[in-house]
């Protein structure tokens, strides 16, 4: 890793995350009000969605966009199988919990993506704006695969009807807000965005700092209370993002994406959902244990991705594309 990796660790965004983790471990009472945290998460999604839409309105839609979309959706469908096998075999989880956890690893984490974009931009490798749409498209397929794995094909379990379930999944607030803001970005374009950019653009990194402070607090507190997560599961929570990240990045480079977009796709593959999917699992697989899937995705994979894996994936993408040679 080069100087830019170190630069990551002097970025306030990452440092506030570390501060949150340390404060929680020191048992400080520091806490962000829930309403504020929720508001910040909506803000981040609206802002990233709009920025992506504006970028696409500038660049237009080309073959790369479709490649990335197809790759992302396919990955989201397929990745849970690999995770499921690991979770049942090495992780010793039952079918139900293995399926629930697998869904998380096939889906994506918005905040991990947003943080990766910040880091990639600092490193001079900004991903394409269309990656936001790829992210939104990757949220859902993994949920379907995970449910199928958990319940077996055909059976319905104690949860809700499939129609209700699909509605939940396609109209859940993060998908609606991401895609809605993305569409707004496309329609209003750079000119329309200019009006609101002091809010959505200029404030973005600062809000991300405070939001990551909160996520650091929550992730660390959860692991301090955790009981359900064995060392085997902890190892999986590191191994899966590593492997998924390598596969995602390599496939993206092979299919011709630029270095930033390939890294972003790698990060999406590596990231695990801790917002949309847990909520969907409570509805569809209430018997699965949130103590397992939330702790793995939020308290282990999320910090691992933020602090280490994004840097690794970025370096990998650079190496594979040979992009590191040029000026940033």
């Amino acid at each position, binding site marked *: 890793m080069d100087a830019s990796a170190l630069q990551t660790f002097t970025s306030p965004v990452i440092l506030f995350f570390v501060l949150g983790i340390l404060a929680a471990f020191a048992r400080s009472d520091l806490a962000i009000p*829930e309403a504020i945290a929720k508001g910040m998460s909506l803000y981040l999604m609206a802002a990233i969605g709009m920025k992506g839409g504006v970028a696409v309105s500038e660049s237009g839609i080309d073959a790369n966009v479709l490649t990335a979309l197809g790759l992302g959706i396919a990955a989201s469908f397929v990745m849970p199988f690999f995770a499921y096998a690991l979770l049942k075999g090495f992780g010793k989880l039952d079918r139900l919990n293995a399926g629930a956890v697998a869904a998380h690893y096939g889906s994506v984490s918005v905040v991990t993506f947003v943080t990766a974009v910040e880091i990639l931009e600092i490193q001079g490798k900004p991903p394409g704006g269309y990656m936001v749409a790829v992210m939104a498209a990757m949220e859902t397929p993994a949920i379907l695969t995970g449910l199928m794995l958990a319940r077996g094909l055909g059976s319905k379990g104690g949860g809700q009807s499939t129609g209700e379930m699909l509605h939940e999944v396609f109209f859940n607030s993060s998908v609606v807000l991401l895609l809605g803001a993305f569409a707004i970005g496309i329609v209003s374009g750079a000119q329309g965005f200019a009006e609101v950019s002091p809010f959505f653009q200029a404030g973005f990194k600062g809000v991300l700092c405070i939001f990551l402070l*909160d996520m650091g607090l929550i992730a660390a*507190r959860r692991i301090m209370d955790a009981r359900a997560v064995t060392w085997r599961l902890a190892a999986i929570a590191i191994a899966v993002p590593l492997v998924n990240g390598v596969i995602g990045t390599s496939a993206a480079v092979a299919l011709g994406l630029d270095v930033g977009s390939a890294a972003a796709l790698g990060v999406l593959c590596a990231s695990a959902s801790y917002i949309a999917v847990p909520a969907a699992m*409570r509805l569809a697989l209430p018997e699965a244990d*949130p103590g397992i899937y939330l702790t793995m995705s939020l308290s282990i994979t999320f910090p691992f991705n933020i602090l280490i894996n994004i840097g690794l994936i970025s370096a990998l993408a650079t190496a594979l594309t040979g992009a590191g040679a040029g000026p940033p």
Partner: protein
Amino acid sequence: MIETVIRKRIEILTDSALVKRVTDAIDRAEITGWTVTPVSSGKGREGKWREERVMGTDKVFVLTIAPQDKAMALAEDIAPLLTTHGFLLTMWDVEVIRGERF
């Protein structure tokens, strides 16, 4: 002196994502209404939780006032959810004014 009648007060602790299932059950029991109040944190067999609004796994209380028979019908109706989703249901007798509303 003002007149009061006895009704059941039922309080159900539920995931906020599942409120609609509970209120649908209340409507099915033909109870006149319900009220939702927020919850901050808690601990149960599945460990502690708090500040989970961002994750969408937070909880709320749904409370409803109903005559005995409708209350029992409601309890009967949502008993399966209690088991699968780990809801908490408590109920007790209260005096209400203007009992004809409930």
